[in-house]
């Protein structure tokens, strides 16, 4: 038996049937998921999917179900949910309960846009919901945590954009983790039908930056023919939180997905992102910015699966590492037999800011078709002394100079989203993390 207690639970997260005893249409699915969760073995480091990872931090025994929340807390969290100035809609969840909803405009409603919580969607549009809800299996090692999520998920947004509808302003969702020792299971499900367009931002926040907690989220994007979806997740859980995030994107014909994950919080945060290039002409941009410090472990696993000919994927992950932090990047480009004319790219860059920091990179390729163009690259380096000196010679302090350089380093990935307001907001979050650290 493995030495770690990864994935073990105490008696607190017991089953899909919640403390309130409520049963809904999906109770059965939840119970099945719970059974799967209990049956699936805990991860071990000899599995390639968990190579480099510290598994001793992954025990779940100390976490309880989502905690109840007082009115005053709700009020304060609503006040603190600062997102973008111009948005088409916003939902705020705290400890897996919806506490505010700024509805999308009447015009979008008239065009048939559905913007609901997943519970509402499950009961009001069961067919559409079931067709897409957790239909893509976790394949990068977190099958067990995906099952846990499915057994618990209630909070989260369901967005259905009908054919040809373009939503110009971004839609936002906040997920707050409040109190200590609790948990939350944020879910985002976006279905963008043919030739539709939408931008969506998830914010994961903790009320107290030092509280413990468990977050286990799933995000599924479905892109119909010619659709364009821009998805951003700003993960800023407490620095003591344990976090899992499982992302899947299915890209249809000529569709274009852009997903950016910003990883700031968590003592141990693992993110798995899979892009299925399923329609010819489809393209997926997979982006990430991670700022690791103290003893953080930011563990990212990616998979670019080219299932059909003439698809493109482009991955750019940027990690800055300070103190004794660790990052792991393990990514695979897979080109299935027959998926000719694939154009796949993968690049991870690590910027080490301290002698104790450790960057692990395992960029992989598995190519079973010819007539493809696949490249990957991984670099690890540090802030160039010359660069620092240049800035300092202009009167900027060393710390400030370093900060500027790191920002510049990270900016490349943020800019790829091509949305100035979002870039500015993310820039702020990154700044806050630096300021808190120093």
């Amino acid at each position, binding site marked *: 038996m493995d030495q770690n207690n990864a994935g073990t639970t105490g008696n607190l997260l017991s089953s899909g049937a919640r403390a309130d005893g409520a049963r809904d249409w999906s109770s059965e699915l939840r119970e099945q998921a719970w059974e799967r969760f209990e049956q699936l073995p805990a991860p071990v480091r*000899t*599995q*390639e999917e968990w*190579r*480099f990872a510290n598994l001793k931090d992954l025990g779940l025994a100390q976490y309880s179900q989502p905690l109840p929340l007082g009115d005053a807390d709700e009020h304060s969290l609503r006040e603190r949910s600062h997102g973008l100035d111009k948005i088409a809609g916003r939902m705020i969840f705290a400890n897996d309960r919806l506490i505010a909803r700024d509805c999308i405009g009447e015009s979008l409603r008239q065009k048939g846009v559905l913007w609901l919580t997943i519970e509402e969607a499950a009961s009001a549009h069961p067919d559409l919901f079931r067709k897409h809800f957790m239909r893509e299996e976790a394949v990068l090692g977190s099958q067990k945590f995906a099952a846990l999520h499915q057994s618990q998920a209630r909070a989260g947004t369901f967005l259905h954009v009908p054919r040809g509808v373009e939503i110009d302003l971004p839609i936002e969702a906040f997920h707050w983790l409040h109190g200590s020792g609790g948990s939350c299971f944020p879910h985002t499900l976006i279905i963008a039908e043919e030739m539709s367009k939408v931008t969506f931002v998830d914010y994961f926040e903790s009320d107290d930056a030092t509280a413990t907690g468990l977050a286990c989220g799933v995000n599924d994007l479905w892109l119909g023919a010619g659709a364009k979806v821009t998805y951003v997740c700003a993960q800023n859980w407490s620095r003591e939180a344990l976090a899992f995030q499982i992302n899947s994107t299915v890209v249809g014909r000529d569709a274009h997905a852009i997903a950016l994950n910003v990883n700031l919080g968590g003592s141990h945060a693992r993110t798995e992102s899979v892009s299925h290039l399923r329609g010819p002409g489809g393209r997926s941009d997979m982006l990430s910015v991670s700022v690791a410090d103290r003893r953080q472990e930011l563990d990212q696993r990616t998979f670019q699966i080219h299932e059909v000919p003439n698809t493109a994927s482009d991955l750019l992950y940027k990690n800055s590492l300070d103190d004794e932090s660790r990052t792991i990047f393990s990514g695979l480009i897979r080109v299935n*037999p*027959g998926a*000719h004319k694939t154009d796949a790219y993968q690049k991870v860059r*690590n910027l*080490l*800011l*301290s*002698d*104790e*920091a*450790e*960057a*692990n*990179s*395992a*960029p*992989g*390729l*598995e*190519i*079973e*078709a*010819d*007539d*493809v*163009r*696949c*490249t*990957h*690259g*991984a*670099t*690890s*380096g*540090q*802030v160039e002394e010359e660069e620092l000196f240049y800035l300092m010679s202009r009167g900027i302090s060393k710390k400030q100079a370093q900060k500027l350089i790191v920002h510049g380093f990270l900016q490349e990935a943020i800019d790829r989203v091509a949305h100035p307001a979002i870039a500015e907001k993310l820039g702020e979050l990154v700044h806050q993390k630096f300021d808190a650290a120093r």
Partner: protein
Amino acid sequence: MNDTTTLDIDRSVGDFSYPEVHQFDAGIGLSADTVNYIADVKGEPDWIREFRLKALDVFEKKPMPTNWASKDLEAINFDKIRYYLAHGQKATRSWDEVPEDVKRTFERLGIPEQERKFLAGVEAQFDSEAVYSNIKKAVGDQGVIFMGSTDALIERPDIFRKWFGKVIPTGDNKFSALNSAVFSGGSFIYVPPGVKVKHPLQAYFRINAENFGQFERTLIIADEGSEVVYMEGCTAPKFETATLHSAVVELVAMKGAKIQYITVQNWSANVFNLVTKRGLAHEDAEIKWIDCNIGSRLTMKYPGVVMKGKRARGEVISIALASDGQHQDTGAKMVHAADDTTSNVVSKSISVGTGRATYRGLVHVPKHLKGCKNNTECDALMINSTARTDTYPAITVRGTGNAVQHEASVSQISAEQIFYMQQRGLTEAQAMSLSVNGFVNDLVRQFPMEYSVELKRLIDMEMEGSVG
């Protein structure tokens, strides 16, 4: 410069065998008895016997590495293999004394013509034991020792025992343990301080018997400031059933020494070629592996360099060609263990038809080191849509002050490309040759001249008619 030699790695040349009459045969299957038989025949002292028996134990306990490696390994049946076959355990120094059938085999492979041309020393191993070993007087006079593994351990333990099994411990992996239990033959070389061996030392490995396992063991020690180039070539005839080649090669480069180790592997397509190769580079030393894998059914080989002293350098340059039914699973391991160490990996693979080429790399820059640099480039070329290529690097870097860079690309020569080039007026053969040579050219240039000509010819030959 000498004439361009022809190291005969052309498969049609290697594909022959002679009826075997072996004076010594350990029988089929592996047990403590097999190991004892080998030790008895060789007249080994107890410490070697114990080393072997301990290794057997480790081998039996270690699982197959199929959690990450090819499932094809399961096709090896260790109970069906013959672990030791020899004509007589002493290598002869005069070509005339070599048994007639063995002589015929090697004459067909061009030995000892090679020696007459430019080699400083040559050893030829036929199944388990060296059948011919000669070192030119000039080199011998410089104090260079070039002998078989067991002889070296018995006669010069003062030199060899110290490093034997130290660069690659028995338990490094299942196959290094197997080799440690049943090793036989191979080259043990010692180059004294300051001696620069002018011409390459060379070994030929030849498997002639079916169901046979060849387990040679090589240890090269280059003392302070010395330099040596070692070349090995491997062939086997085609048999119906699988054959196993599992060598262990350890290199030790003392302060300021340089070792270059060149392999051209052209085993026939039923050989499992599972080899562990690693070098230890002390201060200012340099170890360079040049590795060319053309034959075998499955090759698993990841030459490594542990850079133990400051400013040590490690390099792996490899070309792999995976033709129909072959899997070349190769790569490099670079372990930086001192400041200002530099490593460089350049890997090019070509997969054709149903061939599969895999690159696995490990780069490790642990704590508190400064000025370490690694550069890795691996490029794969695919010819035909059924081919497959994989790249699995793993890179760990700690601290500031080091620079590590990995780049890989996959490209192809497809029928469409050939058509495209034909549409511009080139013939199919011209188009193919232009593409393949464009791919490997910059790497082939790094091989010693006498190899590069042969290598290009061989690759061109393998490529013929592979697109269509």
